[in-house]
């Protein structure tokens, strides 16, 4: 039993990160109709920036904040330089464009930071907490806390702010939104910025758990996308729930099935989800946006 709990504890830690990356996919997809291949790369940029700033001696809080802003800026640049000028291209071209962005960002990271993984310590030192025989590291608690905070912040943003509501309107019907004087191009900019910022948050809380390295964007992007698809690609909260369930499924899969095929578990789930239930596991729950 405690073994099972250990798997779950490990799984939710990873899953929360997947979920945060997934949130970005959902926001961008709903507002612009684009699947952004560079989503995991924002996480990577923020993580590496944070490491550099910490190494340069900046205190934790400003370093992490600046790093998140750096990630968000990458989102801004993606939208303004690539997505916006290509607004009239077919969706196919837009996906491939984001692939190009992802490749360029990864190369850039390699140029700036080199190949070696780097890391900084957990936010709070101390031994892991024991919950019914399962060990949960303190940083995992930080991850979960931050994830919860992000969920609340997103809820507030989409329910209580004008911009959030405008973005929702854009998500439901772009043409109708335009008629209500909502500028889709502007919404797209906000969407990319937000998605990148959320991924950036995931990046800076992730570093103490594993480490930061230049080619972490693709694996996290893929897992994040899987999380978003499990959630039905319609709701940020669906993506978070999808991420948690994916993380737990992976950890339990490693524990009870085969660790060699663990990665296969995620991608098989992705393939099955897309083919059998493109509307997502949680669509029944109708968790649209809030």
């Amino acid at each position, binding site marked *: 039993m405690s073994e099972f709990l250990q798997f779950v504890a490990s799984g939710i830690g990873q899953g929360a990160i997947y979920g945060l990356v997934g949130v970005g996919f959902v926001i961008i997809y709903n507002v612009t109709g684009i699947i952004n291949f560079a989503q995991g790369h924002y996480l990577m940029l923020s993580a590496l920036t944070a490491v550099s700033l910490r190494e340069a001696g900046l205190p934790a809080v400003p370093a992490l904040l600046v790093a998140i802003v750096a990630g968000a800026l990458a989102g801004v640049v993606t939208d303004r330089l690539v997505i916006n000028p290509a607004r009239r291209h077919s969706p196919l071209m837009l996906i491939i464009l984001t692939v190009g962005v992802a*490749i*360029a960002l990864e190369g850039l990271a390699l140029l700036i930071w080199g190949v070696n993984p780097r890391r900084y310590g957990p936010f709070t030192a101390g031994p892991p907490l024991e919950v019914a025989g399962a060990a949960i590291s303190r940083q995992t608690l930080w991850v979960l806390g931050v994830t919860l905070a992000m969920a609340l912040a997103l809820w507030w943003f989409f329910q209580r702010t004008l911009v959030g509501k405008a973005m929702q309107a854009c998500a439901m019907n772009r043409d109708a939104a335009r008629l209500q004087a909502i500028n889709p191009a502007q919404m797209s900019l906000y969407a990319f910025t937000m998605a990148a910022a959320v991924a950036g948050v995931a990046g800076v809380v992730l570093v103490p758990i594993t480490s930061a390295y230049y080619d972490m964007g693709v694996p996290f992007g893929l897992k994040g996308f899987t999380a978003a698809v499990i959630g039905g690609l319609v709701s940020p909260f669906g993506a978070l729930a999808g991420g948690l369930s994916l993380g737990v499924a992976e950890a339990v899969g490693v524990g009870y099935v085969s660790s060699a095929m663990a990665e296969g578990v995620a991608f098989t789930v992705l393939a099955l989800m897309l083919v059998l239930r493109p509307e997502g596991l949680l669509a029944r729950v109708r968790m649209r946006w809030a």
Partner: protein
Amino acid sequence: MGLNRWGFLAFLVGIFGLGVLLIPVADALPFLTRANLVVFALHAIAAMGLTLVMGFAGQVSLGHAAFYGVGAYATALLTAKLEWHPLLAMATGAVMAAILAALLGRVVFRLRGHFLAMATLAFGLVFYVVMRGWDSLTGGNQGTGGIPAFALGGLRLDSDTSMYLFLWGVLMVGIVAARNLIKSRPGRALVAVGASEVAAASVGIDVARAKMSVFALGAIYASVAGSLYAHYVTYVSPDSFGLLPSLRFLVISTVGGIDSVWGAPLGSAVVVLLTEGTREVVPKFVSGATGSYEIVAYGLALVLVLLFLPRGLAGGLALVVQRANEWLRGRERPTPAAVLEEVELR
């Protein structure tokens, strides 16, 4: 009208000659070798399969390298372990790839747009994981080797030059086949499906079947290239068939232009030149530069080409040819034929 059949044939002969001429060019250029030509041709053949899928049926695949892998592994296992004839192994691989693609297409083509892309992505990743995990068959991460050189009758492809010339021939066959397809009933049906599914169905085209068949055809191109790759390198490992190779095929196809049969060769040539060129040039300016400059250049090239030449280099080139034509003829008003020249240099 583009070119008529004889014009096209003449053009083809010219292109083949050009391919042969590339050999001394590669020898003369300090940063190219004949091995680059081999890789260029291999990637062009595989990417042409993707070009067909994307350009002529409007479908995208992010898992194309998996089919490349099916061919490579089929050849590796059948020729090295069971000592089958290379041609038989290649055909088996192609059939397997086609069946796999058809099965995949059956389930996947109910999806549209992004979801389709992502489903093929997932398929490619699952293939990669399976090739790594199925040790007893594939040799797992360590790969499998001992593949003999391709031999057919007295022809033995054991040098870069012979391999390249053979591949260039295969590429020409691939181009002719693709062009044959486009100028025919099933080919026109595919283009129609790519343009409007509902209208295609309204003239009696079974849209799902058409997509499945072009997907299978694209897989065959990739698989044949994969088989020849296995013969060339004599060793295969999963890393050659993962996500990055799939993306590379995507880059080659889109940069080259997905609505022209010349797109894949053009794109492949550009990628080789870009790779080797930056490798050669950048270190001259930046000490200690590694492949990372090249990766940035690769990404930026993709973005820039798609932003400014959405129809790829082939489309851009066709436009240049047309403009040059107009200029030579003394600024006539564009005739329908000239408009067409732009539409198809097929």
